[in-house]
């Protein structure tokens, strides 16, 4: 067995999970909501990219420039969707029992999945442009340029988010709200707007991951968000939910575990019980 190869593919898969896990963790950190529709936003991102690609394929041509343009469009669309979701399904319930929001989250997840199934049909769609490429050999392992590029994009996005949360004004507002929303309101922070913005950013990241998955794997379907949603959730938990750097770390750990053939659904139970115990004390 080639261990270097396993590590590399684990890192690659982990970077996908990380983009989705970040949104999970952000939303949880700020409003303590397990957003079960988050995985479906990833799926919506993939379909948004697909639509842009189908409509404007001729104008854009192929290659990475086109991919990045499409990704930006899809990120804006998915981010908008996330904001809409928050406005329609979550904000009216902010003063309601916490579990009620869980129900609307699951409801939103159903609505998104089957909304897409109605709009695009249940048959999987194939991305019209794939990223075709050469291969890089490192020792006895190989990485495709596409994998490198995808990982690079993911890292850039993650670094941008980290900077945003750590150094900007609105990042400070997010961190403040996660600690004490009531005090923020008293201090004149526009809580609604910050939460909206958080949803936009989290959803846009998921959308970017969706487009990347579409372009790299080539196949998208309306239920593709479910499994990755559960995994991202697991990753966020392993890293300590609400902690952004932790979510990235958790995602990479999960990617590596999978790559080494650990059945992760079971592993997630074990690891989460461990991490949970470390939190409770």
């Amino acid at each position, binding site marked *: 067995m080639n261990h270097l190869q396993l590590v590399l593919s684990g890192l690659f898969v982990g970077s996908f999970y990380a983009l989705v896990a970040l949104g999970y963790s952000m939303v949880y950190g700020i409003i303590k909501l397990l957003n079960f529709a988050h995985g479906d936003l990833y799926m919506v991102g993939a379909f948004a990219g697909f639509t842009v690609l189908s409509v404007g394929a001729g104008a854009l041509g192929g290659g990475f420039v086109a991919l990045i343009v499409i990704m930006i469009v899809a990120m804006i669309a998915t981010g908008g969707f996330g904001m809409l979701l928050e406005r329609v399904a979550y904000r009216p319930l902010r003063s309601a029992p916490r579990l009620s929001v869980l129900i609307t989250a699951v409801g939103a997840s159903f609505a998104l999945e089957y909304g897409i199934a109605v709009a695009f049909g249940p048959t999987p769609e194939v991305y019209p442009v794939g990223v075709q490429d050469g291969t890089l050999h490192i020792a006895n392992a190989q990485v495709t340029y596409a994998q490198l590029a995808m990982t690079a994009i993911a890292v850039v996005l993650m670094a941008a988010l980290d900077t945003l949360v750590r150094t900007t004004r609105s990042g400070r507002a997010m961190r403040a709200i996660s600690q004490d929303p009531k005090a923020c309101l008293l201090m004149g922070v526009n809580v609604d707007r910050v939460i909206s913005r958080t949803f936009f950013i989290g959803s846009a990241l998921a959308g970017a991951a969706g487009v990347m998955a579409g372009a790299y794997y080539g196949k998208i379907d309306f239920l593709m968000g479910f499994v990755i949603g559960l995994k991202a959730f697991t990753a966020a938990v392993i890293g300590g939910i609400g902690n952004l750097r932790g979510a990235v770390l958790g995602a990479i750990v999960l990617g590596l575990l999978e790559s080494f053939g650990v*059945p992760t659904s079971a592993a997630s139970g074990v690891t989460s019980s461990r991490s949970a115990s470390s939190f409770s004390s």
Partner: protein
Amino acid sequence: MNDESTLRAGEKPSVYVSAVEGRTPTNIAPSVTEAGASASSRTAVAELVSNSLASRCLGTGAAVAALALPLVSSSTYVIQIAVDALIFVMLAVGLNIVVGYCGLLDLGYAAFFAIGAYTSGLLSTRFGWPLVATVPVVVIAAIIAGLLIGGPTLRLRSDYLAIVTLGFGEIIRITANNLDFTGGPNGLYGIPDFGDFGLRADIALYWITAVVVIAAVLFSSRLGRGRIGRAWRFVREDEDAAEAMGIHTYRVKFAAYIAGAVFGGIAGVLFAAHQTAISPPSFNFLWSALILMAVVLGGMASTPGVVVGALMISLLPELLRGAENWRYLIFGLLLIVVMVFRPQGLLPAHPGEPRRRGRRAREGTS
């Protein structure tokens, strides 16, 4: 972990942004029932409604209606989905003990359902036991599973408990999927029923299910009103205060968890008898989520509410069957709409202690 990128989870995991707009200070009406208490104009209505619904005559009416269904219509389809719905009611009522009464968020409840179904399925198909004889074993198996998973996790705060139970649910399903003994992905088939008593087999099963489920609903509603129920509510409202008042919170939470496990296990036996074939996909995360939805949609801790919620969650997709892919789109949108307009559930429990009936109430002790 004090780096600046951390969005730290608050000290109290369960204080949602409600605190921002909260009309009541959190220390008076914290966590789960906060909406019920917060809108005081609604409180009176909620009290009236749930009082009227808790009234015996309505409960009796519903029970009679359930028992009389085969006399009204005995079509195979009606009986089939009615049994499905009743089993779902049983699950929802069981989970209500855990989530509604005691405030423990369990996202892997389907695991107990699976344990019940698989235990009775294995004993009846591999060892030829009559299905009734498997019930005691199922109860024991459910209790053991409850002890194993509850033991280490019930000391945790609710959010982490949710995550661990989610993992547990998946572990049970994946184990069943991978073992040859449990039939792998195809599961078990040829599970016998309880016998037909000279009736059409599905109608006999319907009546058995109806009796069991009605008994379960009554039992859980009694539990909620008794001494232990009061302890559960106390733990749910404020665990620290409960502890200070001398309630052994760990033990009380355990009791709720085990009671829920047993309800789930028995529902599993009914499910195995009803389906005749069980397989891992029937016990996936979606099921746990749907049962939880029934509880929250109906109104946590309110038995009539939970029953109505379970009937809705179970029958709506069936009634929307013709809509194909629109089916779950409509279902999802309906859930959002219902929750936005009735965030505390369709028939919420009224906050505070249930009004005592009978002699002591007249003496004014309540």
